[in-house]
């Protein structure tokens, strides 16, 4: 008897039952609200918003097909290819995956960007002189995934290892150069006044 009373009291203290001993209506958070909460955490963690703004800015800048930065005296051009993952923190949609050869520069993607979904992950092709690299980049870590390096020129195994390491460093340097260029613009006075309005105008076609 005493154990039953203790159990009932504990349930009451936990808020599982009311004074009448009946189960209370659990206050359940709206599923969409929970989802948006997680999306906000993802955006803030490791300042991922900077990475998303960078990849979105890069998508805009790359559309013209012109070299975006110079590395070791040679221009670097960027092309977004096939796959794109967009993420946002408001509205009903928090993630959109776009696939297709023309998908990254499509009107649908631009519309989604205008709605506040920014590029979180993308497959890109970097051309630096005669060398072409392909890699998937993510906004939070800027890790390089599934990268294809240019064909090796050397045949000796030791030399091939050195050459691959050099190519990996070059790919890293390309990413850093583009990120550095973005950060310069991002921290400058023109970001809010000029760049963001121009980006929004591009999104709206």
């Amino acid at each position: 008897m005493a154990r039953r009373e203790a159990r009932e009291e504990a349930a009451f203290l936990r808020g599982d039952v009311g004074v009448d001993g009946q189960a209370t209506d659990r206050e359940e958070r709206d599923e969409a609200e929970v989802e948006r909460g997680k999306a906000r955490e993802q955006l803030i963690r490791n300042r991922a918003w900077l990475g998303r703004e960078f990849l979105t800015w890069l998508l805009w800048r790359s559309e013209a097909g012109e070299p975006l930065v110079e590395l070791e005296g040679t221009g670097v051009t960027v092309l977004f290819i096939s796959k794109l993952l967009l993420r946002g923190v408001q509205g009903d949609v928090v993630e959109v995956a776009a696939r297709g050869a023309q998908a990254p520069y499509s009107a649908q993607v631009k519309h989604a960007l205008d709605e506040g979904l920014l590029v979180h992950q993308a497959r890109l092709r970097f051309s630096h002189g005669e060398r072409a690299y392909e890699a998937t980049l993510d906004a939070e870590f800027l890790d390089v995934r599934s990268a294809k390096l240019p064909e090796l020129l050397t045949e000796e195994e030791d030399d091939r290892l050195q050459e691959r390491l050099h190519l990996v460093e070059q790919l890293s340097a390309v990413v850093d150069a583009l990120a550095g260029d973005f950060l310069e613009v991002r921290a400058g006075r023109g970001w809010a006044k000029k760049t963001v309005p121009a980006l929004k105008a591009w999104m709206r076609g």
Partner: protein
Amino acid sequence: MPLLAGTVTFARFQAELPKTASTDTRRWLSRALKQGAFQPLDPAAGAEDRSAGFVELEDHDSTTFAAGAGLEGEYALFGWRVDQIKIPAPQLKAELGRWLAKFEQEHGRKATRGEKAHAKDAIRGMLRQRTPPTSKVHDVSLSWKTGAVQVWAASRGVVDEISEAIESAFEASLSPRNLAGLAGAAGLEGKSLAPTGALLGVELSGAEVDRGEA
């Protein structure tokens, strides 16, 4: 070895290395790798189910790290080996089921919760000795000249584990080469890099941003 062929996946860090990295590279590298060297699991001895540490890139069973081993020009190349004993759950369940049936037959009653838990531990210990560990090696390249570090792994958990091990063994300080890390290195901090509300479609409060970054 992903360093040698195929597509490549790697996490990027920038390391601040101690002076000895450039003045006495061979000894510094050898000492650091030995300090964090891989120790094989001994199923018979301890209760550890996982072991991780540095191994030589060319021979994943070797942790000799002779002076100069793993040095390729300006790069130090080594592996991070993770051995793990994973007892398949269905196997454990089947063994326990057999034990319970035998117990009931012998004692004429069902095993108590305590007896069942005790038997489960004993069965897990027995299976543990029979199960060979699975082994994975992730390559690491570190430029002792520039401090660029590449961890050739896709799993973020493994990447974090390796970066912590490098910091500890190499007396180095690693920062990720992501936008936040690059901004920090360029001395760009503070409000100028706050989230752009016009792009995100929502304004985030400074307190929320600070909380998320902490």
